């Protein structure tokens, strides 16, 4: 039981990262119904940019706390803005020209973008996993019999902040309203004076900023980053988005946590090498028996 509770905590921090990535998938799918395959690689690129920025700043774990905080803020902002820009560029040049086309073409383009990004990251930092500086001290706190690392708290806290911020942005701001309107009925939204192109670009920007932030958190949490990470993480996060009900941000967050739990519990009780098989089996079962996900509405089917 203690083991189970301990794994719940671990699942929470892992799931938080998946949840933040899943938000980007679900936002983009909600607004243009495209599986943005490149999203997972944008997330990994975020950790690479953060690493480059930290290296430039000469940040190490031996610096004073203020220095570390400054370096982290600068690197985090750099990663988030760079990824936001990347997302907008990808949308503008790879997806927008195909927007009127049938399904297959944009999906293939998305896969193409994903492979290009992965290869670029590989050329940039090499084919092996790269160490990420451990800037945040990671003492463990005892919570009864369970121990929780400071880094886990950072991951969970920052993810929750991002989710709340996104929720506020989408629900309470004018731009968020424009996004919701475009997702609901782009034509009516356009008639109401909403600039569809800008709104879609904004969606990519926000989703990619979140992915960049998740990339930075991942680097800090795991201490290594690898160019190929985005493929697996992206696939799993997409599963989370589908599980929660694609197009639904609350669902994506919920799905992220559920998938995080599935992964750690599989690792604990069956064997870590079966985690992926479990996750994809869940995906397949969800799609077959409840294609709308846990919180989703009836999905439109387009071919």
């Amino acid at each position, binding site marked *: 039981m203690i083991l189970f509770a301990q794994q719940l905590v671990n699942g929470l921090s892992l799931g938080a990262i998946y949840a933040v990535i899943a938000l980007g998938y679900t936002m983009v799918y909600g607004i243009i119904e495209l599986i943005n395959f490149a999203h997972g690689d944008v997330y990994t690129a975020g950790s690479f940019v953060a690493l480059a920025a930290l290296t430039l700043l000469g940040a190490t774990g031996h610096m004073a706390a203020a220095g570390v905080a400054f370096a982290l803020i600068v690197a985090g902002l750099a990663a988030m803005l760079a990824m936001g820009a990347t997302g907008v560029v990808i949308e503008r040049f790879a997806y927008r020209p195909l927007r009127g086309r049938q399904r297959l*073409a944009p999906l293939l383009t998305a896969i193409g973008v994903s492979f290009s990004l992965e290869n670029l990251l590989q050329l940039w930092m090499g084919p092996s996993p790269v160490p990420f500086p451990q800037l945040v001290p990671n003492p463990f706190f005892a919570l009864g019999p369970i121990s929780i690392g400071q880094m886990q708290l950072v991951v969970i806290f920052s993810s929750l902040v991002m989710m709340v911020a996104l929720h506020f942005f989408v629900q309470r701001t004018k731009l968020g309203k424009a996004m*919701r309107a475009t997702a609901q009925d782009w034509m009516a939204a356009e008639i109401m004076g909403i600039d569809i192109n800008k709104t879609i670009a904004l969606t990519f920007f926000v989703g990619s900023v979140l992915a960049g932030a998740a990339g930075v958190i991942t680097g800090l949490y795991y201490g290594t980053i690898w160019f190929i990470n985005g493929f697996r993480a992206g696939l799993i996060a997409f599963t989370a988005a589908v599980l929660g009900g694609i197009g639904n941000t609350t669902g994506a967050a919920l799905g992220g946590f559920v998938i995080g739990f599935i992964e750690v519990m599989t690792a604990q009780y069956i064997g870590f090498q079966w985690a992926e098989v479990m996750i994809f089996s869940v995906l397949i079962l969800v799609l077959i028996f409840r294609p709308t996900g846990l919180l989703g509405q009836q999905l439109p089917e387009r071919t």
Partner: protein
Amino acid sequence: MLHRILPYRTSLAILVLFLLYPLVDHNAGHVNAAADAAVFALLALGLNIVVGFAGLLDLGYAAFFAIGSYAYAFAASPFYGLHLPFWPMLLIAAIIAGVFGLLLGAPTLRLRGDYLAIVTLGFGEIVPTVFLNLPRYTGGTNGIVGIDQPVLLGYHFGFNPVPYFYTLLVIIVLSVIAILRLRDSRLGRAWLAIREDEIAAASMGINLTVTKLLAFSFGAFFSGFGGALYVAKLGIVSPDQFNFTVSFTVLAMVVLGGMGNVLGVIAGAGILYEFQSLFLADLTQWTHALGQAWSLPALRVVDFVNFKFLLYGLGLVFLMLLRPAGIFPERRIRAIVTEGRGEIIPEAAPVAGDSPAADVSPPGES
């Protein structure tokens, strides 16, 4: 059958050129690359049935390739102590792959478009992982070594690429004839109808489930051929030969050659395989030589083989933007990939039930 697409004489001339190729080019590495390209051509032919004919995006095609490969490896290696003969096993491996096509296809067929793509991608990840994680039954990471090589009328194929090349050539020709016959059959026309408009096809009385399942199964069948030949030629099979990049590469071949065009996808496979295995390596050598001659150290360390997926990825993007029907477009496929409907976002196809497409739940709605 070939004269339907290419003039009869042209096809014959191309075939003769291929037959003569190993006699002209004595570089075993080149013939070997050509034989591997032929394996990929078989895979592309199979995937073309699923993607090109039936319009179902399968991103996990390597799973069937893996199943066909392992089927032969189990039956003809010291691993289980079985040494069944190659030729019947070739057919059996293909049939086993085809059966798995049915099994894996069955639960996914209610899904359309993107969802099908994602689920097949999931299957494509699961199958090699299962082979990897069951070392007692599959050899795990190390895979299976010492796979029997084919023997024909007392002639041992060994590691000489030439007989494999000819075998593959024969199988490809037979497959092309079979696939063209299939395409023009009732089933093939049903595939094309589904690809063009699923709802219209269904209302014309086409059984969507059966037709799609058969597309999956026939597609998988040809990958079984490819798999058995591939591992027999290599003598070894391991899970890492079947990762997502294989599915992606075969898909890129089909898209490049022109979805739906049988001879086009073979050309796509040939072009892409030679591009990655010979051209990129040669280009690297030339660049290094240039770097030597001009004493530019930067040029001497470039390795274009490392750029492979960047080039594939960008190639796919530009292909979709500029020539979405591939280099050799099939006449009928143009309509589905190139003709937009003149709107920013395509209008939803009305679905059985009452959910207008615009009802997708907006971000943040909960």
